């Protein structure tokens, strides 16, 4: 259907890297989200404030600016700071690590809100019952809240993943050979830009479709213990 003149494998390689960045960033986002949402719910003013600043600031800045800031800005910032301390070094950043960390850090802010809502959705009675059995804070969290929270978190996390995987296309700007970057290379070499970008868009679309299917399966699985009227 589409003549890619032998560049098809390049797009597939790119898709693999896109998925690798996406999964890595999602793991980071979940870890940050869990931590920051606990900070928000901790009731300790410093932690609540810090988590609030994090989510407010990150959600107000475009992803592209943050990626450029981390990839180009962070090394020069570190060099400048070290220079003040009398050290002359060159700091370079690997685009894969910079991209994954930045995307994870951005979507951690969105995951924070998802987890916060999910923690609040666990019925109070469950926590009271756990307390009545003599469980302490950590034990209650690990045994009662955490396992039940996921059911409420999955739809929101699914949305975060859908937006996140599309945001990985921005890493092509810092030359990481993921799907978008490779489509760019193929477009220039074959002089068929529309065909190449369109095939790339179909690959993104199929990732979205597969993710939707997986999300439905996960939601069903997480809700298997719930009684339905």
């Amino acid at each position, binding site marked *: 259907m589409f003549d890619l003149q032998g560049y098809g494998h390049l797009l597939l390689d790119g898709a693999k890297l896109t998925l690798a960045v996406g999964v890595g960033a999602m793991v980071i986002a979940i870890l940050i989200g869990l931590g920051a949402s606990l900070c928000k719910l901790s009731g300790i003013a410093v932690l609540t404030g810090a988590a609030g600043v994090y989510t407010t*600031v990150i959600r*107000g*800045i*475009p*992803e*592209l*600016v*943050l990626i*450029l*800031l981390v990839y*180009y*800005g*962070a090394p*020069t*910032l570190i060099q*400048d700071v070290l220079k003040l301390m009398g050290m002359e070094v060159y700091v370079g950043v690997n685009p894969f690590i910079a991209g994954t960390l930045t995307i994870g850090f951005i979507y951690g802010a969105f995951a924070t809100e998802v987890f916060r809502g999910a923690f609040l959705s666990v019925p109070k009675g469950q926590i009271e019952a756990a307390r009545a059995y003599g469980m302490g804070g950590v034990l209650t969290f690990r045994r009662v809240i955490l396992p039940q929270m996921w059911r409420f978190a999955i739809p929101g996390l699914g949305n975060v993943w859908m937006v996140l995987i*599309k*945001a*990985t*296309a*921005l890493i*092509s*700007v810092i030359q990481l050979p993921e799907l*978008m970057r490779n*489509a*760019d290379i193929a*477009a220039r070499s074959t002089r*068929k*830009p*529309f*065909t190449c*970008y*369109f095939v*790339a*868009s179909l690959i*993104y*679309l199929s990732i*979205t*479709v597969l993710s939707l299917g997986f999300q439905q399966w996960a939601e069903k699985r997480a809700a298997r213990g719930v009684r339905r009227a």
Partner: protein
Amino acid sequence: MDTEIIIESLPRLLDGALITMEITAISVVLGFILAIPLSVLRVSKNPFIRWPVYAFNFYFRGTPLLVQIFLIYYGSGQFQEFLSDWGLWHFFREAWFCAILSLTLNTAAYSCEIFRGGIEGVSFGEVEAARACGMSGSLLYRRIILPAALRIAWPAYTNEVVFLLQSSSLVSVITLMDITGVARVIAARSFAFYELFITAAVIYLVLVYGVLFVFKRVENKILGHLNPGAASS
């Protein structure tokens, strides 16, 4: 930190902010105008009307905006002859036009789904009452369903506008001189990377929370009657 370069480049960054605001505003307005009729078609009972809109929304919501921008800006080159014959090549050669076109189509798809949710959320009693008063078709939509649907959809639409404002930073990739574009050019020339990108980030923050403030005011105005506990403004 080199504060001198920040102060020096501030006027150019603010020029960029104007471009960002201009591109966002035009795309939001055009996207809105497109999304309203699309959302009415989207809830049609006829599958031949409903499905094409669904497919459009699915494609534009399921693929990255950057791909859409590249498809329109670089991809149109593949059809240069065809577009020239129709006298359209003139437009597709312009990065500005391609940026507006892709942002408009993108936000139209997202807004259409938001408004669809709004239309489906209109209570049946209101529609029934309007029918009993003899309204039907376009009158029913214009007077009853769309105003109610817009009220329901407003908070979600606010988010969409904020996302579009942030997404407009992608137009810097196709050479437009918005906030991000200006910051990239000056940073590449002066090596003052973090100074400029942090300044750009602060300008975006101000714009985003400015838009949120305005939209919240509108929300209080159009949804105030549903929330009698809150102080009216």
